[in-house]
């Protein structure tokens, strides 16, 4: 009713022409995370194929179906590929239903994108913000209407989140992290948001005012957060105001809700109970959404809708989708829920069930496939068995191989005859060279243990996991959650926001003794801590690699520390981790540990000195260094040389070493003991010296 003039509130002269105001959308093609590694090392996530169609097609099709007229696509990773793909797609043709603009950015988080968008002033009115991996067929008409109606009444209603109702347990819902939305039943206002880890005590920390102000609230955990937000330009302003926000939920939503008392800005939830909406944000979701698409829950975005103009899928009985010129041997058996791309051939006696196979694949004889995802141009040798694995473009699997559940074979990997790829292994040919510029992708060294003799590829270790284990080890408690997850889910996966949360969680619950991160602190601080650690260690590492002046690094660190209010202990940890990373990096590049240590630490003494002054601090620094080195190649050697250097440079005093050595945390586990074994001699010598010099030291300190 009387929609005229509603826009006048936000943009002055818009009131008259508002009817002509195009509906805009922002697609965040980047995920700023590594959950699809090893695949995302070589290809952007939005171009990965789901049911043989690139993910971005689903997203753009959804936007086109909602009547969007202008789309801005943010891409910062593999932008060339994204551009190349889109420039050849129908979305940039004359006939495209909307104008598409690709924005290259150097953002490292969603927050950066949003702030950049605000600066560019491209957004004129309300817009839809989605990720480049959304698969949805819901109609946004209702949500948009509600949003407009609310805006009219109250211009502080800045955002509407579209959430899909799903039951208690749902394959498409994230099981890793339960997202709880507390929604006012009457106004649909989201009044509180929290993420709860599974198997944690399901306790929400709902602020008192919420309970006081709202007569009726729904606490909902059964919602799929598909990342579709209808935002007003005000949202961008909010992002710009808080320069440290990164995640749309964890930071933005939380931040706005917290500031409600001050600014009265509200965020609403639109819960849809019809249609399909999900994000392919981890491998588990990839599996779930693929299955949803094949069993037509995403209708009409199903394979035989042939989203791409060159597709010719045709569905036949038993939910089998076949493209033209698929060759099936007479005795091969194509079971239900299978997709076969153009010119793919199946050999005699091959049985395929619940699988998606791309184009031009050659599947040998008597192959058994169940729940497999095979992309284009793969070859599978005779008598192989493939269960629930993802096999990327151009992979070749030899004869009599067994690829087990959750295995990921990245581009061009070749597996020799008779090899078994064990569960949840990530095999790749390339890896991302440690560095913040993700561009340096290098070929790794083939590991015959993984791919067999004559194969090509090695197992990829994830940084995320490494750091996870690190957290666990530090506390001396075996961290079991991840492995359990692996058991009950088909694929190992992590969730970007969840991940960070997890770190924070670990830190508080298990390492409260480590300085400032007390367990009684609010969730906000915990998150900040995790953020800080990531950011700080990465930036130091980056600077070390580029050989920046230590003073500058120090300055940067200080600024970062101020902005996130981090404690000294966190700074130490960040520095220790960064150094260890840098050394490991050098070692990998072929340097001996000794040289590596010399190169990394010597020019940057001041940096270390600044953060380790007292004896306790030195001990703690050593402890951090030790725990981080547990996972690095040649960790024990590195530790020895590092200790030596630190001692000779007088960065760590003998008492520091002694305290560290005696600290029970430094010998809490097998790995830790192993890593420090080689350093024992050095410590003994140092501590021995120390006794004699005791008096002097005392004098000095006074």
């Amino acid at each position: 009713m009387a929609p005229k003039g509603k826009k006048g509130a936000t943009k002055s002269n818009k009131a008259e022409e508002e009817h002509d105001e195009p509906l805009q959308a922002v697609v965040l093609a980047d995920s700023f995370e590594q959950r699809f590694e090893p695949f995302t090392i070589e290809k952007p996530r939005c171009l990965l194929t789901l049911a043989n169609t690139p993910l971005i097609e689903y997203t753009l099709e959804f936007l086109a179906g909602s009547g969007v007229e202008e789309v801005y696509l943010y891409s910062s990773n593999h932008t060339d590929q994204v551009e190349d793909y889109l420039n050849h797609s129908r979305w940039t043709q004359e006939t495209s239903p909307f104008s598409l603009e690709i924005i290259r950015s150097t953002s490292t988080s969603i927050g950066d994108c949003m702030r950049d968008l605000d600066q560019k002033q491209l957004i004129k009115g309300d817009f839809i913000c989605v990720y480049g991996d959304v698969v949805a067929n819901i109609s946004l008409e209702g949500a948009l209407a509600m949003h407009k109606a609310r805006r009219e009444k109250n211009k502080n209603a800045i955002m509407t989140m579209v959430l899909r109702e799903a039951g208690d347990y749902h394959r498409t819902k994230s099981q890793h992290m339960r997202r709880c939305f507390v929604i006012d039943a009457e106004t649909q206002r989201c009044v509180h948001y929290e993420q709860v880890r599974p198997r944690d005590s399901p306790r929400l920390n709902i602020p008192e005012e919420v309970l006081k102000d709202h007569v009726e609230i729904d606490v909902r955990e059964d919602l799929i957060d598909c990342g579709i937000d209808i935002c007003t330009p005000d949202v961008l302003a909010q992002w710009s105001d808080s320069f440290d926000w990164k995640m749309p939920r964890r930071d933005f939503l939380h931040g706005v809700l917290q500031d409600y008392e001050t600014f009265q800005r509200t965020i609403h939830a639109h819960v849809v109970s019809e249609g399909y909406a999900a994000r392919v944000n981890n491998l588990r979701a990839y599996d779930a959404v693929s299955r949803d698409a094949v069993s037509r829950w995403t209708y009409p975005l199903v394979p035989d809708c042939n989203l791409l103009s060159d597709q010719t899928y045709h569905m036949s009985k038993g939910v089998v989708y076949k493209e033209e010129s698929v060759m099936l041997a007479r005795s091969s058996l194509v079971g239900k829920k299978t997709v076969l791309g153009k010119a793919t051939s199946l050999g005699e006696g091959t049985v395929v069930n619940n699988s998606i196979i791309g184009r031009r694949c050659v599947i040998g004889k008597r192959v058994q496939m169940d729940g497999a995802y095979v992309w284009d141009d793969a070859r599978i040798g005779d008598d192989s068995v493939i269960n629930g694995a993802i096999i990327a473009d151009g992979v070749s699997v030899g004869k009599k191989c067994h690829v087990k559940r959750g295995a990921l074979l990245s581009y061009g990997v070749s597996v020799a005859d008779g090899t078994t790829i064990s569960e949840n292994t990530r095999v790749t040919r390339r890896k991302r060279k440690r560095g913040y510029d993700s561009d340096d992708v290098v070929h790794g060294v083939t590991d015959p243990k993984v791919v067999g003799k004559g194969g090509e590829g090695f197992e990829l270790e994830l940084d995320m996991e490494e750091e996870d284990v690190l957290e666990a080890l530090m506390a001396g408690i075996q961290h079991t959650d991840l492995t359990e997850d692996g058991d009950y889910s088909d694929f190992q996966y992590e969730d970007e926001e969840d991940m960070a949360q997890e770190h924070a969680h670990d830190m508080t619950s298990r390492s409260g003794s480590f300085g400032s991160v007390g367990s009684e602190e609010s969730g906000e601080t915990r998150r900040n801590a995790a953020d800080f650690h990531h950011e700080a260690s990465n930036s130091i590492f980056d600077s070390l690699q580029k050989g920046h002046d230590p003073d500058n690094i120090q300055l940067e660190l200080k600024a970062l520390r101020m902005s996130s209010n981090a404690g000294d202990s966190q700074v130490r940890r960040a520095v220790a981790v960064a150094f260890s990373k840098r050394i490991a990096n050098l070692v990998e590049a072929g340097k001996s540990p000794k040289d590596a240590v010399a190169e990394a630490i010597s020019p940057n003494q001041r940096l270390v000195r600044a953060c380790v002054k007292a004896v306790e601090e030195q001990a703690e620094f050593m402890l951090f260094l030790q725990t981080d080195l547990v996972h690095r190649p040649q960790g024990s050697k590195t530790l020895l040389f590092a200790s030596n250097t630190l001692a000779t440079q007088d960065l760590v005093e003998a008492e520091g070493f002694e305290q560290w050595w005696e600290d029970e945390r430094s010998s809490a586990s097998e790995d830790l003991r192993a890593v420090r074994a080689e350093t024992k001699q050095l410590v003994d010598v140092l501590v021995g010296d120390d006794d004699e010099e005791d008096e002097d030291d005392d004098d000095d300190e006074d």
Partner: protein
Amino acid sequence: MPATTIPQTPSLSTYLKSLKHNDIETSIELFISLLKRRQIKNSRPCAIATTHLLLHVVAAERIRDASKLIQHVRDVGRRLVAAQPREMAVGNIVRRVLGVIREVAEEDQDAAGGTPLSPPTPLTPVPGETLQRPPLPTKMSEFSPLHGAAALPQDLLATAASSTQDWQSEDAAQRPLLPGSSTSYAGQPPSVTSLFSILQQPAGRSPFATPPTASQSPLIKPVPQTHDDEVKEKLDIKAEVINGIQELQDELDVVDTQIAESALDHIHSNEIILTHTSSQTVQRFLATAARKRKFTVVHAEAYPNDHEATHATIVNGGKKGSGEDEEGGDERWKPLTSMGITVILIPDSAVFALMSRINKVIMAPHTVLANGSLLAAAGAATIAQAAKHHRVPVVVLSGVYKLSPVYPFATDDLIEYGDPSKVVGFEEGEFMEKVDVVNPIYDWVDSELVDLYITNLGGCAPSFLYRIVADHYRVEDIDLSAK
């Protein structure tokens, strides 16, 4: 629409609006994506959109050469059909338009050559469909067009190219008149004729829209495929074709009224009629009968794809939210109940139990196929089977635009599978994880289960449909995918 600022979800109405300011290629692409996204679905919206689109295509065409125009329309048609092969109305309309162009071209040629319009081809009905069946297609869009069943034998056609004029002059008396021979069912030959000819009158010399009745000679005749040499300005081909397409649009507008004309011949007092889905055609038909007679309607709700529309139709009448109310001119009508008709809503499962009490089943198809079988909303097959069991006559109301020359070789492939969440909610995570749910949107009903088709040309038996196909579609156009 409550707020004008809300950009509408694309649909038929927005599409028709956009046609005016978009260029042709954009419009075609847009229509293709709307078809793919199922934002335009069901026969009538598809047919309407196709006619509008082709009108623009022809209007924008510069070439005055008929054969090029045919080629162009054919190309467009092929793309449209490939986008959603199961919406056969699209293909039907494309074929009709192609027929119009060919006809104009011939007329032009005739006018140029000074040959008077000769009576159309002699038709020797070939009932056996086995005659020249084309090789089995590999995909659905190539579904074997009814070459054999079409009244023009292939060889005749082949020779036709060279010797058109010779046999054109043969006696046309063999040609059976359409409506007259079609009354296998107890009803009278319907009185559409008069109305129909009235409609056709202003069209003057190009009555392409529907091959008319006895008075006018249907201009169906085979034609050489090449017209390169006869682009004479005697007739403005473009204008004529546009006229023809507009007549098609008119036909789509009045098709329901025409079908409803014969309602009184089929519905008698105190009958109990069973119907299915929220079809506008059926409602119109029943409403027309209800003005004069009292009867009872048993309405199966067509769960899960159409039940909401069905409920709305029963309660409110008219049409809601099915994309057809935007036609503007169409008046909304009151529900049957307000006319004193008892309407009983039943679930689909109760059909068999009630069938023994039913006098007549009236259905509206999605598509009618050349052999007299049909595709209709899921549940139709059950109803037809139950009717067969109880010997209840099944009457199908279908506009000619739904009649497709496609022959159903693999009926499974014709059926579209929809969104299973209408059967089991997406929320039921555990259920959907373990159970495969399918939601077929259509049912295929064999021709032997249908007793009578009522088209806008009148009633006819399923076995006679091939004639209507032959009258409406050129053999050359039946297989659109062929070059």
